[in-house]
C-alpha cells in the first residue's frame, strides 16, 4: 500500500522462460474489457464493455455486461451478462432475472449479476486443459442479487446473494438463495446480534443490508475427493466465499445445503487456528483437475476489515470486527485445512509485519493456478497483476495504467490468463523479456544517480544489525517469540 507518486505502469517484469505465457483479460477501470499480451501490448479493447469480471472464451469471445444499475438504487447490479465476439457483436445475452422499475429510470429486465459467473464446460472460468467453456451453447451459472426480508436475520431490507443457472435460451432452470440457509452458517450469538441490528447496511435503494457479500462462485468439477467417495465434493457442487462474513463454503447443487464450510470464526479448532483468520476473502475455488495442486482450494485472503462478532477496540459495534493490513494467497487441502502453498508478504520477500502492507489489497483480487504450476495473482486495489512461480519468484508483473475519472483508482477486479490459441484472430505476439529493474539505480530524468559524491570514514562506528530491536517485533524475533 506504500506507493511512490511516480512509478512505471504496464508490464514491468517478464521472464518468458519461467512464465506460462498467453493473453490476459481484465476490466480496465472505466475503459472496458482489455486483452493484453505478456509485454503489456493491448491486443483488443472492447470499449465500454463492463466486466465483473470479464472472461475470455475460445474463439476470441469475451463475456461482460452492457451496463450497471444506477448506484442510487442497486449495489453492483449488472444489467446483464453478454457474450461478445472479437468485433464487438453481442452473440448471447441474459438479463431476465428481475424486472426493475427504479424511480426516474427506464423499467427493464436485469440480471442483477455481480462478481462471478461460469459457463458450462469449465468449472472455474479460467484455462484448464481439456475443460473448455462452451462457446455456442451450454448453461451458465450466475451470481446475482435479490432483495429479501428474513426476520430470522433482521427486520431490515436485505441484499441477498442468489445463484441461478440459465440455459442458452435464458430460462432459469435452478436457483439458490443464501438467506434461506442462515441457520446453517453457525454464526455466534454475538454475530447474530450485530447482524440483526446492522447487516452491513448500505445506502442504495433507501438502505439494504449487504449481509454476506458473496463474491465468487464456481463449480468444483471432477476431483479426487469425490472419486474417493466424499459426496461433499460432488463435481456439480458449488464453492463460494463471502467477504462480509468471512465464510468459505461449498453447497450441494442437488439439495442446496451447505456441505462444507470454514468460518465465520477461525478460533474454534487447532486446524482453523493454523489456517489463520481469513478476512474479506475473494476468489475461493477448487483448483481444477489437470492443473498442479488439483483438488486443493485456492483463495485470495485479502485481510482488511470484515466479520461480525463481539465489539472490540477496532469495532465499537461488532461489525467488521476482524482486521489485518496485509493479504495472503492460500492453497490448502479442503479435508485437513493444511496450507499446501502460500504467497504472503513473507514469500514476497517483505519484512513481516513491518513492511507487509506492500502486499495488500483490502478488497477485490484473485488467484489463478496456471498449467506450469505458476499462479497469476490479481492484487486488485493497486491494479497489480503478478505471475509467481511455485518458489515465489515474480516472473511477470503488470500495473494497470488506467485510473478512473469518476473513481480515481486503477483497481483490477480479477484478471484471467488464457492461451494464445483462444484468440485465433491475431498472430502469436513476439515475447520480449523484461528484466527487473534495479530500483536502487532507477532514476527519473534529472534525478541524481545513485551513490555519494564523497564518502567519509568515521572511526569507531559499529556495524549495522538486523531488525530484532526495531520498534515492533518482526521476522526472526516473531518466530522466536512464537516458540
Amino acid at each position, binding site marked *: 500500500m506504500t506507493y511512490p507518486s511516480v512509478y512505471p505502469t504496464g508490464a514491468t517484469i517478464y521472464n518468458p522462460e519461467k512464465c506460462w505465457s498467453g493473453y490476459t483479460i481484465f476490466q480496465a477501470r472505466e475503459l472496458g474489457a482489455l486483452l493484453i499480451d505478456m509485454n503489456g501490448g493491448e491486443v483488443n479493447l472492447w470499449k465500454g464493455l463492463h466486466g465483473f469480471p470479464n472472461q475470455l472464451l475460445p474463439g476470441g469471445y469475451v463475456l461482460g455486461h452492457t451496463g450497471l444499475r444506477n448506484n442510487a438504487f442497486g449495489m453492483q447490479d449488472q444489467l446483464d451478462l453478454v457474450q461478445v465476439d472479437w468485433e464487438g457483436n453481442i452473440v448471447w445475452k441474459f438479463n*431476465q432475472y428481475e*424486472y426493475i*422499475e427504479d424511480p426516474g429510470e427506464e423499467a427493464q*429486465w436485469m440480471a442483477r449479476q455481480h462478481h462471478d459467473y461460469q459457463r458450462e464446460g469449465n468449472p472455474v472460468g479460467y484455462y484448464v486443459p481439456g475443460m473448455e467453456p462452451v462457446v455456442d451453447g451450454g448453461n451458465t451459472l450466475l451470481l446475482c442479487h435479490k432483495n429479501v426480508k428474513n426476520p430470522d436475520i433482521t427486520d431490515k431490507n436485505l441484499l441477498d446473494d442468489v445463484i441461478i443457472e440459465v440455459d442458452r435460451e*435464458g*430460462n*432459469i*432452470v*435452478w*436457483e439458490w438463495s443464501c438467506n*434461506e440457509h442462515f441457520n446453517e452458517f453457525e454464526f455466534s450469538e454475538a454475530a447474530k446480534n450485530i447482524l440483526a441490528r446492522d447487516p452491513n447496511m448500505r445506502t442504495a435503494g433507501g438502505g439494504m443490508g449487504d449481509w454476506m457479500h458473496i463474491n465468487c462462485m464456481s463449480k468444483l468439477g471432477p476431483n479426487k475427493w469425490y472419486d474417493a467417495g466424499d459426496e461433499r465434493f460432488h463435481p456439480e457442487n458449488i464453492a463460494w466465499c463471502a467477504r462480509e462474513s468471512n465464510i468459505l463454503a461449498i453447497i450441494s447443487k442437488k439439495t442446496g445445503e451447505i456441505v462444507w464450510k470454514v468460518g465465520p470464526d477461525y478460533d474454534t479448532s487447532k486446524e482453523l487456528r493454523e489456517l489463520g483468520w481469513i478476512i474479506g476473502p475473494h476468489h475461493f475455488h477448487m483448483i481444477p483437475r489437470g492443473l498442479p495442486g488439483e483438488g486443493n482450494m485456492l483463495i485470495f485472503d485479502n485481510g482488511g476489515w470484515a466479520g461480525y462478532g463481539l465489539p472490540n477496540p477496532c469495532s465499537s459495534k461488532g461489525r467488521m470486527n476482524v482486521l489485518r493490513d496485509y493479504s495472503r494467497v492460500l492453497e490448502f487441502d479442503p479435508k485437513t485445512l493444511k496450507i499446501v502453498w502460500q504467497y504472503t508478504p513473507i514469500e514476497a520477500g517483505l519484512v513481516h509485519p513491518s513492511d507487509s502492507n506492500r502486499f495488500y489489497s483490502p478488497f477485490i483480487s484473485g488467484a489463478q493456478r496456471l498449467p506450469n504450476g505458476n499462479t497469476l495473482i490479481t492484487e486488485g486495489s493497486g491494479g497489480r497483476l503478478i505471475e509467481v512461480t511455485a518458489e515465489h519468484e515474480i516472473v511477470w508483473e503488470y500495473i494497470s495504467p488506467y485510473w478512473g475519472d469518476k473513481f480515481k483508482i486503477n483497481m483490477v477486479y480479477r484478471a484471467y490468463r488464457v492461451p494464445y490459441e483462444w484468440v485465433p484472430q491475431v498472430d502469436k505476439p513476439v515475447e520480449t523479456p523484461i528484466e527487473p529493474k534495479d530500483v536502487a539505480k532507477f532514476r527519473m530524468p534529472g534525478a541524481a544517480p545513485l551513490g555519494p559524491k564523497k564518502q567519509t570514514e568515521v572511526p569507531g562506528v559499529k556495524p549495522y544489525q538486523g531488525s530484532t530491536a526495531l520498534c515492533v517485533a518482526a521476522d526472526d524475533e516473531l518466530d522466536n517469540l512464537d516458540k
Partner: protein
Amino acid sequence: MINTLYTATGCTRCKIVKRFMEERDIPYTEKDMKAEGKEEFQQFYKANRKYIYRGENGIEFPVFTNGEAIYQGIGPAVAYLHFNGKLDEFFSIGVLHKEWVDGIYVSHGNPEYAGEFIEVLRFLKNNNLKLQVDTNGKNNHILRQILDEGLADIVIMNVLGPEELYSKILGEDINIDEVKKSIETAAKFPEVHFQTTVVPVVRQEGDSPEISYLAPEEVAEAAKLIEEVTESKKNPYLIKLFKTKEAKDKRLKAVGPLSAANLMPYRSKARAYQVFTEVEKA
C-alpha cells in the same frame, strides 16, 4: 347440545366470538386452554385431533363445538353461530395472525347465501379485523359486493389455468367471462395476489385416463389472461405446487409430485406476461 368454546388467554378473536354469543344469548361454556381449561382442551384435542388444524405456530383459537361439529377460528365459528351450517363452504381454517383473518373462500359457497356471507364479513370487519379473501373467479357478484363495501383488504385470485381448461380444472362449467370479471374486480382491491397452482389435469377420460400436469405454456396462458384483463404485466403472480394428498379426485393422487425445482420453467414462461412471477418454495 352443549356449546363449548375453547379459548386462549389474551386471544382477541376469542373475545369477539364470546361477545357475539353473549349478545345473542347463546349459552356456552368457556374453557381457557391456558388456564383452568388446559386439561379439558388436551383431552378434547386428543379425541378430535383429525378435525383440529395445528399449523407451524400452533392451534388457532377459538375452537367451538356443540358436541356434534367443530368450528375452528373466528370466521367458521361466527358463520356457524349466525347461520347454522349454511356458510360452511365459505369458511375454512386460517393461517394469518393478529388482526388478519383468512380462510374466506368467495367461490366455494352457495351463491344463494351471498347475503348471509356478506353479513358475516361485515361483522368481522366491524370488529376491526382485516380480511383476506380467496377466489377462483366463481361468484364474481359476491366479490364485487365485497369490493364495493370495502370488506376485504387483500384478495387472492386463483387463476386456475388457461381459458380452455378452466372448467375442467374447476370441476364444473364456468363462463370464462365471469372469471375475467373476477380478475378485473380482484385487481381493484387494495392488494391483490394472483396465483396459479400447477395441477394435474385429466386430459383424456376413460379406464386409463391420460393425466398430466399443466404445462409451462399453459400456465403462461393463465398469466397472459391476467395481463389481458388487467392490462398490466406487473401484477404479483405466484406459481404454486400441487399438494397431491389434498386432491379430491383419487386419480390425481396417483400422479407423482412436482418439486420446487420443476417450477422454474413455469416461471420463465409466465414472466413473458407477468414480470413479477415467482414460484413457491418447497
